[in-house]
């Protein structure tokens, strides 16, 4: 550093000049300079202590072996250990008792909401209301259930899935493609009958003719009155909720080609505690029976 006195009359300038403005070539304040040097030293020290420099075999590990990934793993372990007691209890109590214990209920409701948003919302929607009426992804917060809306039924559905190929205990059923079995005119009559039993506008003559067809072809699964059959996941055809649409075109399409949805079995993917959490969450979200 220059020993030059910064306060003399003609301090040295940098030699640059812009519009008559010159810049003094005064030394930096000592404290500033030393702080600057210290920051460089500290920066180098940090790269030695912490992982920093990239090499062909990955970055240098650093003296203290710190890793943010290990930190996260430790955090997860810590939370798992902290929740172990309540998780164990939740996994073992009878399902209907979860709601009676405020601690279990609160844990299940909050945990279930998180599980739902992670694993279920992709098909059933963020609000658990299906994607859109008629799209085939069931609304879970209404009071209509294909396979049952008690907490036990919901628990079974989540654990084993629906038409899930990798679970032998999965809920399974299939509606025949009536396009191969019935004439289009018969299908029209069937559709008019379904419109009639669900309280929608219909052609009375066709509907009456459709009644006999319904008894022969549909009642086995959907019931004599069309109120559905939960043991085979057959929807109630008399209510206001339509999984694949209740208008004439949608119904004709459904009867002709048949539709079914597939849900994975979560038994092997989620823990029993997680399944019970999300089952409680769904059961309490408005549709529970």
């Amino acid at each position: 550093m220059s020993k030059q006195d910064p306060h003399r009359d003609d301090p040295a300038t940098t030699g640059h000049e812009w519009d008559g403005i010159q810049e003094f070539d005064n030394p930096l304040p000592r404290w500033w300079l030393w702080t600057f040097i210290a920051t460089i030293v500290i920066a180098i020290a940090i790269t030695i202590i912490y992982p920093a420099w990239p090499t062909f075999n990955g970055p240098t590990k650093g003296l203290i072996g710190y890793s943010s990934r290990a930190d996260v793993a430790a955090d997860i372990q810590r939370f798992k250990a902290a929740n172990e007691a309540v998780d164990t209890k939740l996994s073992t109590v009878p399902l209907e008792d979860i709601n009676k214990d405020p601690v279990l209920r609160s844990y299940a409701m909050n945990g279930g909401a998180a599980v739902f948003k992670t694993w279920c919302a992709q098909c059933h929607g963020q609000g658990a209301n299906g994607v859109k009426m008629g799209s085939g992804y069931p609304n879970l917060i209404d009071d209509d259930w294909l396979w049952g809306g008690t907490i036990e039924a919901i628990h079974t559905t989540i654990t084993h899935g629906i038409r899930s190929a990798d679970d032998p205990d999965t809920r399974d059923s299939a509606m025949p493609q009536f396009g191969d079995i019935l004439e289009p005119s018969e299908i029209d009559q069937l559709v008019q009958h379904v419109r009639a039993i669900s309280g929608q506008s219909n052609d009375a003559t066709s509907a009456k003719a459709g009644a006999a067809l319904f008894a022969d072809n549909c009642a086995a699964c959907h019931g004599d009155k069309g109120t559905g059959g939960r043991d085979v996941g057959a929807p109630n055809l008399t209510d206001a909720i339509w999984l694949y649409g209740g208008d004439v075109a949608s119904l004709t399409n459904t009867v002709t080609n048949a539709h079914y949805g597939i849900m994975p079995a979560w038994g092997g993917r989620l823990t029993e505690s997680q399944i019970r959490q999300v089952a409680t969450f769904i059961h309490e979200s408005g549709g529970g029976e």
Partner: protein
Amino acid sequence: MSVSDDQPPKLYAAQEPVFPRKVYGNFRNLKWAMMVVTLGIYYITPWIRWDRGPNLPDQAVLIDMADRRFFFFWIEIWPQEFYLVAGLLVMAGLGLFLFTSALGRVWCGYSCPQTVWTDLFVVVERWIEGDRNARVRLYNSKWGARKIRLRTTKWTIWLLISAATGGAWVFYFMDAPFLLHHLFVGRAPYVAYAFVVSLTATTFLFGGFLREQICIYMCPWPRIQAAMIDEETVTVSYRDWRGEPRGKHRKSAEAVNLGDCIDCAACVNVCPMGIDIRDGQQMECITCALCIDACDDVMQKIGKPRGLIDYISLTDEISEREGNPPISAWNHVIRLRTIIYTGIWLAIGASLILALFMRAAIDLNVSPVRNPIFVTLSDGSIRNTFNLRIRNKQGEARPFEISISPTEGFELKLQGNEASIVNVPADSTGAHKVFVTAKKGSLASKSELTHIRIWVKDTVNGDRVYRDTVFNGNQSRN
């Protein structure tokens, strides 16, 4: 400062040690009183107990960060009522405006923590090392056994005061007796220790060593105050038209022409800022008025009227130079500007008190669930879901009844609750979900929006609050 060509001015001024002398008088007594009151409030307040019932802390003044509550005697403030604290801060700001425009840097001179603690530290210093002359001698003497003993004693006492100061601070944030015990057995939270240590350090350093340097170089407030002082503001000034020319009053011919100032330097010796008030108003002066006391004492001894140094305003100077008699300081204090400040101050105070008493002991927030905005049920009726947050600010758990108006055509059901009554624990917020269903074919089920009102009733004392919200029907159906 004289600037010669060979000797360029130094940018750095070394601290000139200041040794304020002891002084007696009215303003000194006022300062003692202020010290006792302010320090008393600071150290004692956390230890005052206030019974709020079994579920709430019994500390009169407590800022409970963990539970987000502020307790002040009978007042309890929740975070959403922070506007009350903001109002209080506005009042404090206006109060400073008022006092500064009326009396100059009266805050600095009497009640600023820096002034009060420095004053306290000077008392300790005087007690250990003696008054001004003894302290100057000790300062100039070589380090020896006596000097080490005196300095160590002084620093130890300063450090104890500092620790008590840093310690008292954290008691405002946690139950004081509990925290005191935990501080000593080493089980208090780290943040408590951090605050105790840093506040001890700052008190020790600021009160013991930096003193007037804080006011001159670090504090922004003196510079801001300058903008609020006008020619009517009463500040500490020297009546140079009465005092000059100064000189020793010897029985000689030239003494006849001298002013009242005998150049005894009493005003300079007592000044905690190390300035000479006779140089006129200056940035360093904190208007502590100790020079007034010192000078009045001297004037009395030499048989002259008091007030050579006095609380006067700039207009007084002009008036008195023309030969008019001095006027009372109250004529300066009470004027339009200070009356306006007082008026605004009182208005804010009154509205805060009003707001405080009009607060309901229960509060309700309603937020409609918007995903989905409605659900069609199997019988064709339409259901909306609402999240309720019920705040129970009472010291005991209360059952609340939830209802809806209009009642016709709507059915209300609580999540996980067969009845329509929920229990909210003492001093807490209960989150509840309610399902509101409009029957199939009802107007609400078919309208895009229906205005509804959700009520919460305290079943114990009958207090009711409501929030208006909307019910979303299924317009596209039927």
